[in-house]
């Protein structure tokens, strides 16, 4: 029952609404293109 409760709490926690305008950071790779992509 503890495990179930913990999972339930965690699930609740994940549902925490993100602040308006939240932009996830760009993935670390691949990096920016300096000239053009072929």
């Amino acid at each position: 029952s503890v495990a179930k409760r913990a999972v339930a709490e965690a699930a609740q926690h994940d549902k925490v609404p993100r602040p308006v305008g939240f932009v996830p950071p760009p993935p670390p790779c691949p990096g920016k293109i300096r000239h053009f992509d072929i």
Partner: protein
Amino acid sequence: VPAAPSAPLGCDDPESEAAAEAAVNYINGHSHHGYKFALNRIEDIRVVPQGPNNDIMFLELDLLETTCPILSPTPLANCSVRSFAEHAVEGDCDVKLQKLDGTFSVLASKCHSHADSAEDIVKICPDCPLLVSLNNTEVLETVSAALNDYNSKTTDSYLRLLEIGRAKIQFHPAHVVVTEFAVGATNCTAEQAKANVEACQLLPEDQSNFGFCTATMVKRPSQDLKVDCQLYGHQVPAPDIPLLSRPGVTYIHPGHDTS
């Protein structure tokens, strides 16, 4: 509590860019053919800590060919990347570096270069001439005619072909062959070469003088040949790269003429 592992390096982090710059300088400094390459994108980076101030880094780099021949003394920063319409050439490189006390050293590198697909070019620029194989008959004829034409008119040293860098052929509206090739000065004047071309050999290492030529041969509607050669002058070889293994120097057999 053990220190939390540092966040993985991002491909655009300053440290990643510094590692990529060291890798690109190494690749250009140890390449033996064609043109210098510039960084286009850091595809991936992986760091394996070895101890304090000692990391092994694995880089996956996307490079683009520049218009500077590998032998040119022009600094890479002044070399423009060949445009898409000129039929760009891409290099994919995997590089292993060590960063020890803040200094990068390349432990291994493996690169593969390939021209952009003809379909991509034609899609965007239907009339752009495309790269052709370097042993295309028309290309070989153009290089031979251009070098002979140059040597017949110069009052300087007789030049020998080192390698053909790239070649394009356009068929419409005119039939035009455009080639670029690397040359080396020999121990003959052009006049002496007329008497005995076999005796004309590339200058020895401590006097070497390399250069680069571009030639345009119009075949139709009428024949016309333009050739322009620029010699770099003697370059003092970098201490860690003996001249004979200098990039771009592919010594053809002594006496092997362009014909």
